[in-house]
């Protein structure tokens, strides 16, 4: 039972020294899931697949996988009624890389908002996941199952996907480490597409070292993903240096405005002070187009989603409504199969792309995306990274925002710009509110500079204790 409380790097050390076997870790994890998942509901429990997919060369650590990453032989349902029972004919590149590295993956998949549409994991057709720190609160989303599983020691480490903050915001809400890599760093082949120009797969882990280790495994060029970039993958563990001396950090003034919870603000300021004592140099900077990020995102992400989700029509896989003619079959299947948020986004996206509205919405949003990207380019001319809160608040109550989509969208206000600019960002635990909920610190850097994120995050982590805190379950 104890092994599930450890990090992957601690366990790999024990495996190397012959102190524990991979099978024992898996069995401890299964017991832990049996013990607490009835409360947390981090995993999707309807699939009839085995808890562990066999890997004859398994000598490492199981990785828990979000339900939108294809795992051959193990259901991948995107937590959507339209894909219930879908058993992928091939595995995602990241899954093959995990297996090639001697590790394996949990056969149970992690819960998520349907098609990754959401910020709370409440939009899952299997029901919500609960935050391990307070079961009445959401774990964040859309990778809420992955984040909650890691926080509750039901996973050693996990993969999520991040289109507008879906790794970082749940990492922040659950008190774990979540990284969104540079666009193109990790192959998207086998990730069920939401918004193809924004999506990236990334790790959710208990500490920064595990994040670097998992990035070493999953990163790299893939001929099956024409948007993956053919540039060498460094050994990210080399960036785990306990020293922040001379690192130049920008603090964007547009992120510290109305809407930011005063308690979160205070905790972030304390974290900044800590980093100052470690030698980092801070200066206020401006990202003037910040306020346009959410509107740009909800045009571009929904437009791309409306196109990507056209494939769910009842012909090749998933649900099919019984009708007499083809058009009715498409329409009925999609009415029955998609949840409310999926319908909302597909219709909004189709509207933004439709004749007469394209220039006013879609094209304009693409242009404003350029302005947002230029804001970052300008800051990174003089700074190594940018620090912000990951989310304006700590975890909110289940049900609190479900009837107000716009309010829900605004909970991603600090994470969305990163996807629009394609840059990498990490969220690390940096404190707790008076009610005992975790708060995350977000560090951003320029394209392919994950190393800088790891360096600053590691220096902070080695000089604080937040990452060692465990929820009582």
């Amino acid at each position: 039972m104890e092994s599930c409380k450890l990090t992957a790097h601690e366990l790999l050390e024990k495996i190397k020294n012959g102190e524990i076997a991979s099978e024992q870790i898996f069995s401890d994890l299964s017991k832990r899931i049996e013990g607490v998942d009835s409360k947390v509901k981090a995993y999707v429990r309807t699939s009839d697949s085995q808890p562990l997919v066999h890997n004859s060369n398994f000598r490492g650590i199981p990785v828990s996988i979000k339900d939108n990453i294809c795992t051959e032989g193990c259901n991948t349902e995107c937590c959507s009624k339209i894909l219930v029972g879908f058993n992928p004919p091939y595995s995602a590149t990241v899954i093959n890389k995990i297996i090639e590295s001697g590790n394996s993956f949990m056969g149970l998949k992690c819960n998520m908002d349907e098609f990754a549409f959401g910020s709370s994991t409440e939009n899952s057709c299997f029901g919500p996941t609960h935050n391990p720190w307070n079961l009445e609160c959401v774990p964040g989303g859309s990778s809420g199952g992955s984040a909650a599983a890691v926080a509750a020691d039901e996973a050693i480490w996990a993969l999520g996907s991040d289109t507008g903050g879906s790794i970082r915001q749940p990492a922040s809400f659950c008190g774990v480490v979540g990284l969104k890599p540079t666009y193109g760093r990790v192959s998207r082949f086998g990730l069920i597409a939401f918004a193809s120009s924004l999506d990236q797969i990334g790790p959710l882990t208990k500490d920064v070292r595990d994040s670097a280790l998992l990035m070493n495994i999953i990163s790299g060029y893939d001929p099956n993903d024409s948007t993956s970039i053919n540039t060498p993958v460094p050994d990210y563990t080399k960036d785990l240096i306990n020293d922040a001396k001379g690192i130049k950090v920008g603090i964007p003034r547009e992120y510290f405005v109305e809407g930011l919870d005063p308690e979160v603000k205070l905790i972030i300021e304390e974290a900044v002070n800590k980093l100052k004592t470690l030698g980092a140099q801070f200066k206020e900077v401006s990202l003037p187009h910040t306020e346009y990020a959410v509107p740009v995102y909800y045009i571009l992400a929904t437009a791309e989603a409306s196109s990507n989700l056209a494939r769910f029509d009842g012909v090749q896989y998933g649900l099919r409504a019984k009708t007499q003619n083809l058009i009715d079959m498409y329409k009925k299947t999609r009415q029955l199969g998609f949840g409310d948020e999926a319908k909302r986004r597909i219709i909004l996206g189709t509207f933004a792309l439709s004749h007469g509205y394209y220039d006013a919405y879609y094209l304009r949003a693409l242009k404003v995306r350029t302005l947002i990207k230029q804001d970052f380019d300008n800051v990174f001319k003089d700074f190594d990274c940018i620090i912000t809160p990951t989310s304006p608040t700590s975890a909110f109550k289940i049900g609190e925002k479900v009837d107000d989509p716009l309010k829900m969208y605004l909970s991603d206000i600090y994470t969305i710009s990163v996807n629009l600019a394609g840059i990498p960002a990490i969220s690390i635990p940096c404190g707790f509110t008076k009610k005992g909920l975790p708060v995350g610190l977000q560090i951003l850097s320029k394209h392919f500079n994950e190393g800088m994120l790891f360096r600053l995050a590691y220096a902070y982590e080695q000089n604080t204790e937040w990452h060692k805190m465990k929820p009582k379950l």
Partner: protein
Amino acid sequence: MGIDKKTVEDVAHLARIELNAEELEKLSSQLEHILAFIDKLSLLNTENIVPTSHVLAINNILRKDEPKASLPIDKILKNAPEKQGSFFVVPKVIE
């Protein structure tokens, strides 16, 4: 620019999603609310700005035109709601 119920109905048809009266009502008012927020984009002058569809300078990736093995048909068909031989079956399209 706003969005009315008729537009939502038309767009839902384009997106091949059937909506019942209740869904149409609720969606129309929610989308109106969301679009009012999005309309803040019209405050910016974007006249000479080049649109960004992908953030990194990537080119078309071409592979050699060589035949390669595809996934086997039975694997592809195993998730089909309805199939016959090596085909997907759909409701009759041609009279």
